[in-house]
Each structure stands twice: as C-alpha cells, then as structure tokens.
C-alpha cells in the first residue's frame, strides 16, 4: 500500500483495517498525531487528507484517498505555519497533547474560511477536546492566525 505523508511517499505493508493513526505512529514513526480516544471524540489525532481534517484514529488506512499532512508537515520549529506561530504567540499549550489536533483543525478551518466568525470558530474547533482548558487562548490564536494569513 502506498501512502503520501507530508510530501513523501511510503510503502506500508499493513492490514487495510488498521487506522491511519497507528500506521503513522507505529509504522512510520510520525508521532505528532496523538492517540486520545480511538473513536473520533477527542480530535488529538487530527490530520489533513487533501484539504479536509480527518480523525486518523477512525480512518482505515485502506480508505485513505488523498495526500496526508500531519502537524509535522504543516510547519517546523524553524519555519512555522501561521497557525503554529499564533499558537506560540498566545502560549496556548499547557500539556500540549491535544494541540497537534487543535492546530490541524484550525489550519483546515482557515484554509476553507479565511474570515471565520466566532460561531464558525466554535463549530469547527468543538470536535477537539482539551482537558487542560486552553480554549480561551485557542479562540485568540485562531483569530491571530486568520489575521496573519490575510496579511501574508
């Protein structure tokens, strides 16, 4: 099976039922996407398939039909995506475990909707749980990222 992840092609030899998350983490060593619930309730495993945010814990690898981008492919410490830079600016993360998923959800939102309303931000970001309660800063960071992307 051939997978495109972060612009690189991989051949993986796994059963098609294996969730994409575990192919990424245990087979390819890409550990930015996190395991939190396994049933698409927490969003910590969020990656992009094409332009769309997907919960990789609940997507069979056999059903992948587009290029996958994980948090590692969005930007790097030396070259951060605008959303990541906004997350740093507002110091959103506490434990940080959910933030890969939060950032991928926010990046997908802003790619589809560069000027999201408060309601659109709430709707798009409410599939991602944060047990530490960083939501107030997530709201601020999404707005900052939107402004940065528009200015770019």
């Amino acid at each position: 099976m051939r997978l495109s992840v972060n612009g690189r092609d991989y051949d993986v030899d796994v059963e098609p039922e294996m969730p994409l998350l575990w192919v990424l983490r245990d087979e390819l060593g890409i550990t930015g996407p996190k395991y939190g619930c396994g049933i698409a309730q927490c969003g910590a495993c969020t990656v992009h398939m094409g332009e769309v945010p997907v919960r990789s814990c609940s997507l069979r690898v056999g059903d992948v039909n587009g290029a996958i981008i994980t948090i590692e492919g969005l930007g790097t410490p030396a070259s951060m995506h605008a959303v990541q830079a906004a997350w740093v600016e507002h110091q959103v993360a506490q434990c940080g475990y959910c933030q890969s998923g939060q950032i991928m959800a926010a990046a997908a939102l802003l790619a589809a909707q560069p000027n999201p309303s408060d309601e659109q931000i709430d709707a798009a970001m409410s599939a991602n749980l944060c047990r530490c309660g960083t939501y107030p800063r997530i709201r601020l960071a999404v707005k900052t990222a939107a402004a940065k992307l528009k200015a770019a």
Partner: protein
Amino acid sequence: MANIAHVARVARRTFLIGTAVVAGGIAIGYVAYKRDPKNPLLDELRDGQSTLNPYVLIDSTGVTLITPRADLGQGAMSVQAALLAEEMDLAWGQFRTDPGPPAAAYYNGKIAAEGLPITATSDGFFARVGREMSEVIGKLMGLQLTGGSSTVADAFDRLRVAGAVARQLLLAAAAQQSGVPLAQLETRDGAVILPDGKTLPYSTLAATAATLNPPANVTLKPSEQWRLLGKPMQRLDIVAKSTGTAVYGIDLRFPGMVYATVRANPRLGGGIASFDAREAEKSKGVIKVVPLPNGFGVLANNTWRAFQASALVKPVWGAAPYPASSGALFASVAASFTADCRDSTLRNDGDVEAALSAPGAKTLQAEYRVPYLAHAPLEPMNAVVQLKDGRLDIWTGTQIPRFVVTAAAKLSGLHEKNIHLHAQISGGSFGRRLEDDYVQQSVLLAVAHPGVPIKMTWTREEDMTHDFPRPLGIARMRGAVQARQVHAYELSIASPSVTTSQMSRLGKSIPGPDVTIVAGAWDQPFAIPNYRVTGYRAPPTVPVSSWRSVGASGNGFLHECFLDELIHAAGADPLTERLRLCTHDPSKRVLQAVGDMAGWAAPLPKGRGRGLAYTLSFGVPAAEVVEVTMTAQGIRIDKVFVACEVGKVIDPVNFEAQVMGGVVWGLGHAINCELTYADGVPQQTNFNAYEGLRLYQTPQIIVKALQTTSDVKGIGEPAVPPAAPALANAIFAATGQRIRELPLNKHINFV
C-alpha cells in the same frame, strides 16, 4: 528592609549548602533532618561535567538546570528553570533542562502540611509549627512528589538559593582563574564579566567552581531586580508543543522496541480467575500474552494490533470487592452519618443545636451529592520499559518517581541502584500520575519479556475504567437565619477517605482524621455564630485518589451552594453577606474584587443570573462569579470572573492559564461528568460519555491576581472548587431552580 532577615531565614532553612551535622544532635531524626541530602548528580557525572548542587550541571557545552517537579502541562519545567536562571544570571533559554534522577534531595517540603488540620488563615503557634513540620517530614521521607499546588511555593526559596549559590561558586572560580578580586566581577547571560569587559562563560569555570566550598550565605535579588520572575516568559516547551515535536512518553521509539497493552479487571481489585488467549495468540503481529495479577498483557509489533488482540482474550474476572452499583455505593455513604464513622469535627463554633432548635428559628435543611469523577488526562497511561543485563530502565510520566523506583525494585527483584527512571513530560495528569499502577504492570511485562524495550499503552477504555477516581460524597446540611443574616450552618460530609486509599498503595498509613474529607469546607474564614463542619469516613469501596483540588473539588460545591441557600433564605445579598461574615482580609479583598469585576451591584435582565462562590484551598482564597442566560434550549454560560490571591505571581503567563484551565475543568465536570457503576464496572468508558467542556460552551473568563500579600502560593488547583458552586448558584439566580447534585445536566440542559 525585610530583605536581610529573609536572607538569613533562607540560609537556615534550605540546607542546600554543605553544612556540618549539628554536633550531638538531640535525636536521630533531628540529625537526619539537618544533614543535606546527597547531590544525586554526583552518581552519574560524566567526564567533563561538573555539578555545583542538585540543580545545576555544567559541561563544556553549557548549563543544564534540573527541574525535578513533573511537568504535567502546568508549566512546572519552565518556572523551576526561571527560578534558577534568575539567580544564576542566565539568559532565558540559554540552558538545557532535565528532570534529573529520582532522589531524596528533591523532597517536597510543603505537601505534608496539606494533610494537617491547620487553616491557611491561621498564624498561631501550632499552625506555624505544623508548617515547619511539613518541611521536616518531606525531607526525612525524601518525599519527591508533584502535587498539592506546591511546586512554586516549595521551589521559590530553594531554587533561588540553589541558583545564587551556583553563581557565587562561579564567581569565586572566576576570581581564582583570573586573579581579579571577586568584588570587581559581575555576571550576565551565563558568564562572569571581568572589569575589562572580557567574559568567562560558566562552562569554563565549572570545573574549578565544583572544587570550592559553597558560601555560608547568599543574598537573593530583591524582586525589583528580577529580569525573568514576575514577567511574561515564553514557556520553554511552547514551540515544541505547537509543532508536534514535543516527545511524550507515549511517543518514544527505540530500536527493537515492541508494543503492548494491558487489560485488567475493571472491578478494581477483583482479580482474574483465568483467561483464554488462544485466539489472541493467533492474531496478526502478536508476540505473546502475559498473565498479570489482575489481568493480562498483550505484546505485539504494533500498538493497534495489541489492542485488537487484547479484545480477543476471554477473561474470567473476579467479582468486585465493593458494592457493585452506583445505588449501593451511594447507600454505603448515606449509611455513614453515624457516631462510629465520625472522623473529624474540626470546626464547632457557637451552639449549632441550640440555634437550630431555638423557638421561632427560621431553619432549612438539604442533602447534596457529588459523584465519582475520572482524571482522564488526554494521554492514556503508558510506560516504556526495558529489563536487560540486570538493569531496568523505565520511561514514563509520573508525579511520584521515588515510589515508582521502590515498587519496580520489589517487582523485579533488582536493587534500586539498577533501576533507572527517565521522567517524561505528561499529556495531562490532574492527579492521575500520583498512582503507579500502569508502571507496575509495565515492569511485570519487562520481567516476562526481557531484553527489548516494551512500550505499554492503555486504551482509552482501559484508562477510564481503571482510574482511581475522585470519590463520591453526600452532604447533609442544616441552617438557620435571623435578622437577614446567616445565624447557623451545620455541614456534615460523608465520603470514603482518599488519604487512606491512596497512601495504602504507597505502603503508608496515616493516623488521625482525614482532613481531605472536609477540606475546602471546615477551613473557610467565615464567622457564622453557630457553625459546625463534621466529616464522616464512609467505608472504603472503590479505590480512590487525588483529583485536581482533591477534597475541595466537591466540598466547594457543598459548602458554597448551601451557604447561598441560607443567604437567600435570610433575604441577604450573597456578596454582602459573605463580606460581612468573612474574617480574613485577603479573602475579603478577593470577594470585593470579584464583585467589582462582575459589576455585581448592577441588576441583570430576566432570564439571566449571576452566581458567586468562594473557596479557600491550598492556602489560596479564590472567588468566582459565573454569569448565565436561560435560553429556550437550556443554560448558556456567558462569563466567569475570577479573583484570587497567591501573593506574588512568579509566572504570569502560566498563572492565567492555570486559572482559566481550572475554571474550565470545574465547569466541564460540573455540567456533564460522572462515573457510574454497574456490576462493579464504571459505565463511562470514553469521551462520548464523559465530555467535559468543549470550546463552544466555554465562557469568557476574566482573571485577576490581587498580589496584595507577601506569600508565594501555587494556583494549579484553587480555581477549581468555586467554579461548580458559582455556576449552580447562577442557575438558581436565573431560573429559581436549586440543583443539589452533580452533574448538573441530570436536572437542566446546557447549550
């Protein structure tokens, strides 16, 4: 001016410096207390490395600061480094950090005081002695523990002194190496500056510095000279945590590593009679199935394959060793309001019975309930272990590293010196990692399958059903009002003992009453003329543990909601009456501040309401006002105002984050979380049934730190207890509906 005295006190108390044992110490315990714990960094010092004290390691590439309190998300790593870097004159980020090895030198001198019946508002002789004893107990036990909102309070003096001592040694080394008198030397950005402007980086001075005697006294910077402390700092981990490059225990990968999961009896302590693993063993990728005392582990070549195979094992579990249903568990608590179960009456002012039975007294009574709650940090419990050539390595996130090593030694038969614990950052904890059950299971897997690294990961379902939850509780209240004032308040709380349950798993027994049963209730600074708080110790049932803000997590709700009922019955204003009753000036200021922030005096339109609650916990008074709107679809939480007093705020960015996070934690669980039991098993197995707050429900949260006292206190927990009662009181204000049970969504909808 208080500075000199403060320095002297620091030097007496901290014992970082190599002081001689007091001659002919009165008792062994006293001598042991006075003796400095050994610097654990000396044991593993490599060529070219020097250590100046347990917190500072220097080699040719620079400085490593040791930050032994676990970073669970609360920013402990950054703030510990900041305390050291401030006094060492290191530029922010101009160093590495390391959690260090588990060691007695990293004892917690504050945590034991939480278990003592001393109010935070008391400054009497016994209170002061008690707090001093906490330092003694912590040191004698070598109690390295992260919890009780103690990290900043415990580290504030100790780490600054460690940094200052290191700086003095480096200065002395520079004087020796350069021949320039010490008085002419300065330090800046990790180097000693000579009068001619030449710089000597600490890395070139450390080897000499390590041979010198530490100074007998150091002077700490006055706060006006702080470069880092009290100012916004970028968390050291923030870039990594924003780019997916932070490595948690669950992310570790080693050559030859295998993957594992564990399933144990969800009836905790019920044991396993037998299991049939034939189908699982044939499952793709499975290496072996290992029996464990309460279940089994599955080793495979991929975590998901281990999960899949573990579901194929057919276990025969034992019955729950406690009442098997929520109804029976609550009944066990309800039956505990007896003289036999009475555990403490730490407050008993006036004459409650007389006040309640006085002719013409206007009385009311109520019963309240709080449920079991899971910690459910987002990173499920996990550990990487390897047993090879007589050496056991453990990589995991834990709040109790020395207990982990002790347990691992017992299970593996190895000496503690052959056990190496590598502390990892944690994806949340909220008290969960004060338990080491998941590490013990992993160690047993390593014993059964030595030679290779094993990464053991629990499924979310395993995590939810094998927590040691916050216990359930029932409160019975009676009260009387007269002349528009609260005249009598009797609060009786029955709950199983967290302290007994948790300490028994650490091999300790704590005598006396369990203060956590009444924490956040008995110790509130209100001069109600007739005021009694009694704790009843319900029989041990489900094993329980410390959950963010521990006893106060439920008791804040119990105390503050019925106080609100009494105030309303008296026809008084919730803020004015609390201010009238309050005997503690910082608490009064906190109440006044939150009232001002919320515009308490200005009325709200019909259908909206404000609720106030106040809890003193972990020495921190915190008051919150919640504003809600009753919509056609249910309650919407609009705003939360929080005022608290921690004294000096050391790390303002994390301070605000912890307060907001505490509010979200308190509100989310109050709205929709509980663990219920059927057949001895928790019925909520994942986040679909245990949601907490999501972003769309999150109110605007406005935070204020008063900074009007000279204390330094922790804020990881104190914002939690007032959130639930402030919300319930707001719902009453908006709707007239008084809800006396959590979670609130059993009685009202939320939008």
